[in-house]
């Protein structure tokens, strides 16, 4: 643990080294990205020198990198110098005083999703007591986990309280110069979650960011690190079915998972960032790097995602199957409605012997939405007797949307067994008419047909999440069939 003296020394050194005096009273950094800004962020967070160095190395790498253009998405060029990379959480004075000040359209959606009033206030960022209620819930929750030795806290807290773990694992799965957006995140990440499950512990509850109340307003450059020691198990839930507004258009998160021998990590996401209006104006750009390392033998990492939000999604949760007999899974539902564009899929890299992976992807396109599945399965020479099963299904609703599939398969060991299935179906007028004839109206029919289509993915989600996800698809598809 760093002592107060260490920290002060580090700060003093830093100022000297970079010739930059931090105005700690200042809450928001001026727009733009530079080494000074990164030093400011790091100082604000009271970070040790090694982490600042790490950020700066990422930044220097990023400067030499070009924004990727291979994804099947179109958006206006991003001016990285106009973005503000650090803003302290808003004070109560700046926040809406009550739900009356919130966009009625968002409130209507909360109603449809059946979100309790207190939670609506929290989601909308209203400055009320509801938040304090949640804080006490969260505290009880953390105490329970602490008894088992489970660490579940914000990334910033982990840097202060468990620097040795952060230092050991940060960037080991997603190197700081892995790709353009990961490098940007590594340089400027704001906050995120940190989870550590000790050897042999089966985490008794689903860990959800919902309970980590201090995770609010950290969405822009989120950084998450989950470590499962030998023989442990954890199920982690990210996101929220309620539509989350955010003033920051660009989101570039990084998630790293490490599963040691016989450990299992189940990571479920429901992503419902603001998709923009019907013309696609104002939506979030979600450029995420998520990767898990099955480090130990018989370890298992399972990604399940339901992606309904954002204007542009660029996301490929992946598994590196290094341990012999390790298992990687990817279950995905991605929906693009109106002008939304999603380019999402996975990468499975088989390194160890008898490693196996499963990919189930369900893409739904409605309105003028464009949905792309992009997946890569690589069997390295060392991966004796590896297996993969991939299934990519696309569903089209209406005739102005699009579905695209880009599977890449690269096999360097002839003992591999590969299976790939793909289908594209149009939600049939015949199916809808059949439901209508039985008395079911068109909107209910569409949601029923879509839910049936996504069933294989929904059953991988924890129970309450699955129910919410179904409801979410329903609401997201409203009015898509006229």
């Amino acid at each position: 643990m760093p002592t107060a003296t260490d920290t002060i020394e580090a700060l003093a050194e830093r100022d000297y080294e970079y010739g930059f005096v931090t105005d700690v009273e200042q809450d928001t950094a001026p727009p733009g990205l530079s080494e000074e800004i990164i030093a400011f962020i790091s100082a604000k967070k009271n970070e040790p020198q090694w982490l600042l160095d790490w950020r700066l190395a990422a930044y220097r790498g990023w400067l030499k990198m070009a924004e990727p253009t291979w994804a099947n998405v179109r958006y206006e060029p991003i001016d990285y110098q106009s973005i503000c990379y650090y803003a302290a959480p808003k004070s109560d004075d700046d926040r809406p005083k009550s739900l009356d000040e919130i966009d009625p359209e968002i409130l209507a959606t909360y109603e449809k999703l059946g979100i309790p009033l207190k939670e609506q206030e929290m989601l909308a960022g209203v400055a009320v007591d509801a938040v304090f209620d949640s804080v006490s819930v969260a505290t009880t929750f953390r105490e329970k986990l602490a008894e088992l030795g489970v660490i579940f806290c914000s990334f910033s807290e982990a840097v202060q309280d468990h620097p040795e773990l952060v230092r050991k694992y940060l960037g080991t799965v997603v190197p700081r110069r892995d790709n353009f957006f990961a490098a940007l995140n590594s340089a400027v990440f704001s906050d995120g979650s940190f989870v550590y499950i000790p050897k042999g512990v089966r985490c008794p509850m689903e860990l959800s960011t919902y309970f980590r109340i201090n995770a609010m307003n950290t969405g822009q450059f989120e950084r998450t690190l989950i470590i499962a020691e030998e023989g442990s198990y954890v199920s982690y839930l990210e996101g929220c079915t309620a539509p989350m507004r955010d003033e920051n258009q660009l989101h570039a998160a990084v998630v790293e998972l490490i599963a040691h021998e016989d450990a299992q990590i189940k990571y479920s996401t429901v992503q419902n960032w603001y998709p923009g209006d019907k013309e696609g104006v104002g939506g979030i750009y979600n450029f995420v790097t998520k990767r898990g390392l099955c480090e130990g033998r018989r370890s298992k990492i399972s990604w399940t995602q339901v992606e309904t939000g954002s204007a542009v999604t660029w996301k490929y949760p992946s598994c590196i199957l290094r341990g012999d007999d390790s298992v990687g899974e990817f279950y995905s539902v991605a929906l693009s409605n109106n002008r939304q564009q999603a380019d999402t899929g996975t990468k499975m890299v088989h390194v160890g012997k008898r490693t196996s992976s499963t990919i189930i992807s369900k893409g739904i396109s409605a309105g003028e939405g464009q949905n792309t599945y992009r997946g890569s399965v690589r069997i390295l020479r060392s991966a004796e007797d590896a297996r993969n099963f991939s299934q990519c299904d696309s569903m089209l609703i209406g005739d102005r949307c699009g579905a695209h599939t880009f599977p890449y398969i690269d096999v360097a060991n002839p003992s591999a067994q590969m299976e790939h299935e793909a289908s594209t179906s149009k939600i049939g007028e015949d199916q809808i008419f059949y439901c209508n004839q039985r008395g079911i109206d068109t909107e209910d029919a569409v949601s029923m047909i879509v839910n049936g289509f996504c069933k294989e993915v929904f059953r991988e989600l924890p129970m309450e999440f699955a129910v919410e996800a179904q409801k979410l698809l329903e609401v997201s598809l409203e009015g898509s069939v006229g």
Partner: protein
Amino acid sequence: MLRVRDLHARVEQQEILKGVDLEVKAGEVHAVMGPNGSGKSTLAQVLAGKEDYEVTAGSLELEGEDLQEMAPEERAHAGLFLAFQYPVEIPGVGNSYFLKAAVNANRKARGESELDAMDFLKLLRERATLVDVDEALLRRPVNDGFSGGEKKRNEILQMAVLEPRLAVLDETDSGLDIDALKTVAAGVNALRAENRAFVVITHYQRLLNYIVPDHVHVLLDGRIVRSGGSELAHELEEKGYAGFDGARAGA
């Protein structure tokens, strides 16, 4: 119950029905027979309200209500049921889940309280026994991977559960072997009731050995050219439709 008058309908600019008159009373079973292309299935689709079919003239009334003013689901709520010639597959949606949604959508529309899972299951089991449908069928996705016979039986099961006022069976006998045909017919017979009417559309007389109609109508080239009792079906079986050409010419 059902009154069809001078019905003209077309699909993709082609006129298929050229003036159909049909009156069906509660408790009656009517058979509409005709060769391929005579307009039998068009009649069924027009009754159910399929969008691609445009009514250009005439009227359609169910219990005095104008069907043309009603959306397909509203016609269902009013008690109209169509057993499809080609039942549609809905992968991933459980058969019993689908039926429960249908039953409750109808009940809701009629201002009745929705059935809970227990009550529905009871109803479903009872009806499955009535029309002799294996319970295993209930747990599978709607028509997905069903054999031709299973699909048709499933239509009859849905009919039994939804308890329509008017059931239209569109070539329910096509593609069935004799055992399946008997089961389907027995299901229909079990549902015959004083306040319920059937319109059985078929190409062949065979089905009518098991479902004995009160009235038989011969549909040729978009018009009903002859109507009669169940003996008419036997006459057709002997002479074939060719024998009715004269009637058409005279009509």
